[in-house]
């Protein structure tokens, strides 16, 4: 598989893409000189700020989640690689305020390590923040081993509800509790049907054999799941949903959100087929599909496949989900 990408010098890739991103979404975000993505209109200082960090190459994530009602700052790293601690520390300093910072970290070794170093330094400087780790990938470890669960697209609903809470003026403790409640009730599983190439090295990310699919694929093509023959949309929906409902122990009467996150090459058409089946399966179990999202949020370049993320909602979380937001990847009026 040769690279079929329209890029320039790989060494400038992230800087260039961020410049284009800021141009495309100038009403919502700005790119600072120290390469942080911040909101175009700053949030009031008396409200909690939300900060996250993570590798690039997953567009629109994570910088696409910056905007009113969502993140205040995202710290992009290199392609698939976390930003170093100095940049993250810079972000925490920029966001510093009495109300505090909700610091959302996806559970990947690099992100966690960078967040820890930066967080320790920020704490020494008296910056007030609470860290929330997202780790909802059921393929990487059971619920009893949370350290080893990766953070996948579940960061999006967490950012949405916590961001809405912050916008509503809730305290740092409350925002953190909301984020943790959302996080605790959710689970994600990824399936891959075709591979992709690394945009800077040209190397293959995840080789998927013809006619097969891999359930449990990581965010960067890391292996981890079972290879099986390519199934129909309905069958795939069933396999994935069942595993996810098991993990969160969903019961009749529950209200859930379902988020289908296209990996890159998989069409919206396919995601709609899956969502249709998910809805039918939930109905059979007496569970309500209370909210849903289908689209490309956290991609893996041009990989084929998607992540299914489901999570429990209560009245408060639903209201926060429905609150207005204005970020490149999610606008609600």
């Amino acid at each position: 598989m040769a690279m079929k990408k329209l890029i320039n010098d790989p060494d400038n890739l992230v800087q260039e893409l961020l410049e284009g991103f800021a141009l495309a979404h100038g009403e919502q975000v700005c790119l600072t000189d120290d390469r942080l993505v911040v909101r175009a209109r700053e949030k009031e200082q008396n409200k909690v700020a939300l900060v996250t960090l993570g590798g690039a190459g997953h567009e629109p994530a994570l910088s696409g989640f910056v905007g009113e009602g969502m993140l205040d700052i995202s710290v992009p790293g290199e392609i698939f690689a976390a930003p170093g601690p100095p940049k993250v520390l810079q972000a925490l300093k920029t966001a510093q305020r009495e109300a505090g910072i909700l610091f959302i970290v996806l559970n990947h070794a690099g992100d966690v390590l960078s967040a820890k170093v930066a967080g320790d330094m920020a704490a020494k400087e008296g910056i007030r923040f609470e860290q929330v780790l997202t780790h909802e990938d059921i393929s990487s470890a059971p619920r009893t081993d949370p350290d080893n669960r990766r953070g996948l697209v579940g960061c999006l609903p967490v950012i949405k509800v916590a961001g809405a809470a912050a916008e509503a003026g809730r305290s740092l403790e409350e925002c953190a509790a909301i984020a943790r409640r959302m996080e605790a009730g959710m689970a994600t599983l990824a399936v891959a049907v075709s591979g992709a190439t690394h945009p800077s090295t040209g190397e293959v990310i995840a080789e998927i054999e013809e006619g097969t699919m891999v359930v449990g694929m990581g965010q960067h093509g890391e292996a981890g799941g079972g290879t099986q023959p390519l199934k129909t949309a309905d069958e795939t929906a069933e396999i994935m949903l069942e595993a996810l409902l098991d993990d969160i122990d969903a019961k009749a009467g529950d209200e859930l959100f379902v988020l289908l996150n296209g990996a890159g090459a998989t069409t919206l058409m396919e995601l709609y087929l899956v969502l249709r089946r998910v809805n039918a399966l939930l109905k059979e179990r007496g569970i309500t599909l209370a909210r849903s999202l289908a689209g490309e949020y956290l991609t893996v370049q041009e990989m084929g496949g998607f992540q299914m993320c489901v999570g429990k909602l209560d009245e408060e979380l639903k209201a926060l989900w429905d609150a207005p937001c204005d970020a490149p990847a999610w606008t609600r009026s």
Partner: protein
Amino acid sequence: MKALDYPSLIRAFEGVIASVLEQKDHLSRLDSVGGDGDHGTTMARAMGKVADALAAHGEEKIAVLLQEIGWAILGVDGGAIGPLLGMMFLSMAESAEGLEVLEGEQLAAVFEAGLSGLLAQTKARKGDKTLVDALVPAVEALAAAARAEEDLEAIFSAAAEAATAGAEFTKTLQARFGRARHIGEESIGSADPGASSIAFIFNGFKKGISDHA
């Protein structure tokens, strides 16, 4: 020579840069087994930053140099390895504060501080198939030799040998930290990229010091 002074520390790091850059592709290939295949690229970028730090050295102080190297490595947007190695050197800097040369107990203590600084960042311990498997024996060997007042060449030879053996040993292990943990048993048979980097780093120290001894 028994004492590591500022000029020999510079040369030691020049050795590290050469040793790691030589292995760039090899390290990426190791990372492809269970990781994302970028370890060599990231280490090469880190070495570039280290080279910049060496070139920019203003104050000729060991602690300052170590701190600059630590910050330089932290500044690499490169995943897991940057914070780990960066904090190792920052911790060494803290321990080396005010010292003009490192020898004997001080040399041992500085490297032990580096190890602790790194271990404070992660729950990974020996046997988890990470760079810890190479770093712990390397620092132990270095500290023992330093305390035995051996000369620098012998000290860094011992460390390099132990690091190499530690990296080699990771082939027998199953990854439990970092991205590679997700492939489980498939990781057995191949060395951990981070541990291999530690081996190349200590071999680089050794070469940098011996070549100019």
